[in-house]
């Protein structure tokens, strides 16, 4: 079974702090993703990575950065946390194939509260 783990289930940070969220997958997947999920807005893609050191902006990258130094690990960084970044953060990974499937497997999520 694919396993995606996230460093924390719950996190409380203060406004202005630098926040690191870490994701690790154990299935040798090439692709990794960071989403945030808010009531009424669904899943929104922040950043994704299709290879080590490669990254692509998603739909809402502002205020975030990412790092992928190893294939199995993808970090999301909030440079200066703000209250509007309070959310559920979900990491996912998928195997890159020529065709056809790109099903993503999700971690358990990190509930981040910024006060």
């Amino acid at each position, binding site marked *: 079974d694919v396993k995606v783990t996230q460093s924390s289930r719950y996190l409380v940070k203060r406004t202005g702090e630098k926040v690191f969220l870490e994701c690790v997958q154990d299935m040798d997947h090439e692709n990794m993703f960071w989403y945030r999920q808010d009531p009424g807005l669904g899943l929104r893609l922040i950043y994704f990575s299709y290879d080590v050191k490669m990254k692509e902006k998603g739909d809402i990258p502002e205020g975030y950065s990412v790092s992928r130094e190893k294939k199995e690990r993808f970090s999301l960084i909030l440079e200066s946390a703000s209250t509007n970044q309070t959310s559920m953060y979900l990491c996912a990974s998928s195997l890159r194939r020529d065709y056809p499937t*790109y*099903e993503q*497997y999700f971690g358990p999520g990190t509930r981040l509260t910024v006060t």
Partner: protein
Amino acid sequence: EDQVTQSPEALRLQEGESSSLNCSYTVSGLRGLFWYRQDPGKGPEFLFTLYSAGEEKEKERLKATLTKKESFLHITAPKPEDSATYLCAVQAGDRGSTLGRLYFGRGTQLTVWP
């Protein structure tokens, strides 16, 4: 503009009352359509992938079907443990999708009461 639209937003069913959830999409060059189940406070759990119109997949009380414009998730004789949010996602023909990204709908929150 949303590329994936799910309806209804919320659905309440009595145990044993069959129904369907809808996922319509407007992306071009559909490569795959995915269904997920999400329980409160947890990450989405992968259920099915559909690749082409006419295809069907089944798992226990769930059956997913696909046409050229939409997909249905049919729930037969649901039980309270089927209560969850069901998410639909598509892989399109754009560059991002080629690199692996999916476009998600906002989900249907299903509640099955005894």
